[in-house]
């Protein structure tokens, strides 16, 4: 029983990281209809930025913020220079996915070329352990949960309470229509890629904090449960992705504890496949769906 409760606690912690990443991924897709596989490698990149900054003497949480911002800026450039023009030139979705896969591999091996393939670590940053409702958390985990919660709240306020957020939602729902209503969709795209890229970076550093050691495959391995979370909530739906992150996080940890730790990832994959094949618009699809994923 305590095993189960512990697993739930750990699931919440990893769910927070998942939610962070999944929301960024889903916002990107919502705004530009691109399934950006490079996302995983950008998370890796953020983790290594974090390493650099911690090495330079920054506190880990400051490193998280700076790393997130840097990856956010890189994402904007990536979309501005490469993906955006490709979409405008009429490259088909599958061509784009090939390109993002390729870019992901390039980025991943640039990391290898610069830092090398050996495993890295931030040292001991997890802090004291705390018990809470029978669950055990490290301080670092609690901070990450708090960061995720506040970023999600901020995103919620941005999307619902500001003019910018409304413009983003309008662009996400129907780009052409938004454009003809006088919304500067290119600028909105930039903002969306900055926000989603920063979430990606934050998730990357947070992930690197929660795992003991990491190497250049950090993000690409994490990509699958993260996409599972995004799809579970309906791709393009930020709130869905938040919930999806928690569901995937908890269910994989619980399954790992009760059954076989090696199958932890398999659970995420099964969730993802089942969702893609049975309810491609996400669990809340009928009510929330605005994007057409069905051909």
């Amino acid at each position, binding site marked *: 029983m305590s095993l189960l409760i512990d697993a739930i606690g750990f699931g919440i912690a990893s769910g927070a990281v998942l939610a962070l990443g999944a929301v960024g991924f889903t916002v990107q897709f919502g705004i530009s209809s691109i399934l950006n596989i490079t996302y995983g490698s950008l998370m890796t990149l953020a983790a290594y930025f974090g390493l650099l900054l911690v090495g330079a003497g920054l506190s880990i949480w400051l490193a998280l913020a700076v790393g997130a911002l840097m990856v956010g800026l890189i994402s904007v450039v990536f979309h501005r220079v490469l993906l955006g023009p490709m979409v405008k030139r009429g490259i088909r979705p599958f061509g784009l996915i090939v390109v993002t896969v390729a870019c992901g591999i390039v980025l991943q091996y640039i990391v290898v070329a610069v830092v090398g393939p050996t495993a890295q670590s931030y040292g001991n940053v997890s802090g004291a352990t705390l018990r809470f409702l029978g669950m055990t958390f490290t301080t670092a985990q609690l901070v990450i949960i708090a960061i995720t919660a506040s970023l999600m709240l901020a995103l919620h306020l941005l999307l619902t309470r500001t003019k910018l957020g409304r413009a983003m939602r309008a662009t996400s729902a129907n780009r052409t229509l938004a454009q003809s209503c006088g919304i500067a969709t290119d600028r909105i795209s930039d903002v969306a890629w900055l926000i989603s890229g920063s979430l990606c970076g934050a998730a990357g550093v947070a992930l690197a904090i929660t795992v003991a050691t990491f190497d250049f495959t950090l993000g690409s391995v994490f990509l699958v449960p993260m996409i599972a979370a995004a799809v579970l909530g309906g791709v393009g739906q930020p709130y869905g992705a938040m919930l999806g992150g928690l569901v995937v996080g908890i269910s994989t940890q619980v399954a790992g504890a009760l059954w076989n730790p090696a199958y932890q990832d398999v659970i995420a994959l099964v969730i993802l496949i089942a969702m893609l094949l049975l309810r491609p618009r996400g669990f809340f699809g009928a009510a929330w769906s605005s994007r057409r994923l069905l*051909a």
Partner: protein
Amino acid sequence: MYLGTDLLAAWGLNLEFGVAGIANLAYIVVIAAGAYTYAVLTLGPTSGNGGFQQYILGFHLPFAVAVVAAALAGALVGVVIGITGLKRLRQDYQGMVMLVVSLMAATVVGADTGLFNGQAGLSLVSNPFSGSGSARGDWTYVAVVALACAVGFLVLRRFTGGPMGRTLRAMRDDEHAVAAIGRSVVKLRLVAQAVGGAFGGVSGALLVGFIGGWSPSAWGYPETLALLTAIIVGGMGNNVGVSIGTFVVYLLLLQGVQFLPQVASHPGLTEAFGWIILGATTVAFVWLRPQGVFPERRPRFGPRARSGDGGGAPSGPELSDSVGA
């Protein structure tokens, strides 16, 4: 030798992706299926090696039987993967499903030690021709692979040319319209994936027979990307072009970098450069020349009525909608 097995794999994927338009990012799984099938069929029973590695079957079957079985296994796995792609999803979504299938397969195989010895992989698969001295055995093997490639190319041409190739290319262009002319999209897709899978299976079997082992870490989606790059560079749908593309990608990019000077302090640096160049090449081609170096050839029938070739439009299949429009 490696070129031979890579050719077989690239041809199989070209049939699926270049000709039939199936966004198969899980192609490496059929190669793995062939490799594992071959390995467990040719290895002796588990008990024979003192429990050094665990796996199912272990029949000690002869080479030829195992290769045929690997082809069948590849075809079967190809069909299974094909079924997951049948749902009418957007093409990039389909690609993602396939990507996930491939990761899932790798995870399951890696996690389950009883099946194929888990993460450690299978090894000690002996070269079937090494009885006659190692060097001669190797050459015999190369000859066998060359023969397999020759046969494979003939079979491939049967599927990419003629009425079958035409129908598959039609499906690539418009699945709805293919149904409207009375062809079953489901059947066509599964045929393409079964045949492509058989190619991948043989490729995997021949590879593992030569190098002697196979483990889950040997197959990630980068390997599928390498094959896709070969196809995109060479020219989707053009068998000869894809062959040349394979040659270029493998020999120059992935093998050629080994001749770069090694930097002692950076292990894996050259390999990293190989992948970086590979990825950059892919992006460059999708951007600049989506139809590849050797575009699909335009079929002509008998004497032409008149020179109606004024359009001068390039090539057959494309990753882009705009070029040539």
